[in-house]
């Protein structure tokens, strides 16, 4: 049996999460048996042969001009065609905007189970077990799959890519039927978000602001610290509900669940629904004037003080550090 990995591309570029998916597929193949096969749906080859280094032995390419943009129905049919051709034991996706939309469609068409947004996979008795956070990370659910292929989507940044020396992946065309009638939802254009910033779920460093900022104009101090750290700006639910920041910035149970290397919470008291969304971060720093704030219970390092004094001083210190090491 093989492991099939969905290779996500956008604008002719393979997305970083696809290398993480191939990395986990490679580790699973050692326990469940291989080979690792990729399937990519695109208008043209985004350099798939290079994925040999990331663990793929071959990659099937479903090519159609309509696939220059995401086309849910068309993508789903192409991936199902790949499953029929490869007959994998496991099918993996990245849990991205595309992956989380596509994987359930494929599961529904195949009549099999899907575990979305997994943070760990294991093989027990030759079968896949998927672990996924529920209640925005307040608990972990472990799932088994009575049918094959078992389908899972993997949370970005939760799995390591691998690097294999050696041969290129064989790129093979995938035969599939394109049904224009099925593809009645069409992406007409992409609108970049302000500043084309990285998505929170894909960020290594996040600086989030809360009510303690006192007003939307004061997020400038957060943005400056974020810039010095190479971080993405996040926000608590309170400030999103108040309209200070867009919903795409919200971290927590009705926003995004994030696992960066470093999470800096500024002026955020730490409501349970916020903590759920960020407590899997590797290192958490909290800056708050209230020493009793619940955020300090999950923070690795806490700093008690007035953020309007502390944050600009921290920004300055980080900049000095960057200059010294840069």
């Amino acid at each position, binding site marked *: 049996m093989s492991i099939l990995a969905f290779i996500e591309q956008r604008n002719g570029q393979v997305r970083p999460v696809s290398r993480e998916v191939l990395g986990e597929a490679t580790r699973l193949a050692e326990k469940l048996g291989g080979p690792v096969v990729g399937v990519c749906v695109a208008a043209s080859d985004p350099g798939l042969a290079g994925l040999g280094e990331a663990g793929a032995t071959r990659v099937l390419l479903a090519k159609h001009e309509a696939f220059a943009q*995401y086309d*849910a129905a068309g993508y789903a049919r192409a991936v199902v065609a790949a499953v029929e051709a490869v007959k994998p034991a496991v099918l993996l996706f990245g849990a991205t*905007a*595309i992956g*989380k939309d596509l994987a*359930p*469609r494929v*599961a*529904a*068409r195949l009549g*099999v*189970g*899907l*575990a*979305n947004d997994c943070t760990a996979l294991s093989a027990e008795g030759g079968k896949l077990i998927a672990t996924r*956070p*529920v*209640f*925005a990370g307040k*608990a972990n*659910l472990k*799932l*088994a*799959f*009575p049918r094959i292929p078992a389908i899972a989507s993997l949370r970005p940044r939760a799995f390591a890519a691998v690097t294999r020396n050696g041969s290129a992946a064989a790129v093979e065309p995938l035969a599939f039927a394109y049904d224009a009638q099925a*593809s*009645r*939802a*069409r992406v007409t*254009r*992409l*609108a*970049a*978000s302000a500043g084309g*910033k*990285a998505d929170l*779920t894909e960020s290594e460093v996040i600086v989030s602001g809360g009510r303690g900022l006192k007003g939307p104009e004061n997020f400038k101090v957060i943005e400056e610290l974020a810039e010095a750290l190479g971080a993405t700006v996040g926000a608590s639910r309170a400030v999103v509900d108040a309209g200070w920041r867009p*919903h*795409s910035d919200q971290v927590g*149970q*009705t926003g995004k669940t994030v696992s960066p*290397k*470093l999470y800096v919470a500024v002026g955020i008291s730490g*409501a*349970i629904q916020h903590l759920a969304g960020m407590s899997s971060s*590797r*290192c958490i720093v909290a800056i708050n004037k209230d020493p009793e704030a619940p955020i300090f219970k999950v923070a*690795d*390092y*806490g*700093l*008690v*003080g*007035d953020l309007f004094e*502390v944050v600009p*001083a*921290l920004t300055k*210190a*980080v900049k000095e*550090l960057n200059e010294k090491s840069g």
Partner: protein
Amino acid sequence: MLQVVCVKQVADTETRVKVAADGKSLDPAGVTWILNPYDEFALEQALSIREKQGSGEVVVISLGGAGVQSTLRSALAMGADRAIHVRADRPCDSLGVARALAAEIAPLKPDMVWLGRQAVDDDAAQVGPMLAELLELPGVTMVAHFELDGSKAVVEREIEGGREVVEVTLPALFTTDKGLNQPRYASLKGIMAAKKKPIDEKPAAPAEPVLEVVSLELPPPRGAGRIVGQGVAAIPDLIRALREEAKVI
């Protein structure tokens, strides 16, 4: 225009999760049950479209045990016209839910089907796109902006670092993201009227599970951190800790 809104009853987001004795599910003791917050955006959008058009019907549908009727009443109080309760006393996986809902929704031939982008309990985000496939409807997930132009909708969905603008010909299915609209509160008049609105209870067809729950576990608690210090004076210590202990900067 007939619109169907799928809603789910979930534990309130302030819930402290405890695992039940079976080791596989949420301990329901002391839990406050609410209408899934993302479903409120779905319902609000359907209601505002009905109001703008001055006609049409909004049907809410939910799958679950007897308890979900209170959530359906909340949806009726917000303004839905009638409700369907697909009775299922055992939890079922996302595909089972999607199949049971599809069986009830398909004969209604709705112009639009609405769901929240995910339920805040299992965070699965699956039933919407599965239902789109089962109903053979074009579907757009995580809709953050919506405009209706005759039989065509122009919607935006958030993707990594931007937004996709998608054109869809109705009938179609949408899952809603926060930021799409501001859900209304039920008025007293709405709450009174909801008591007289019909809830049609139907049994869910038995489904063969495609997922098996092995366990539900609480994550290991984070090791207690420490307060580095007070105010600006503590910054050198913080920088040192981040560089030398945590090695993150």
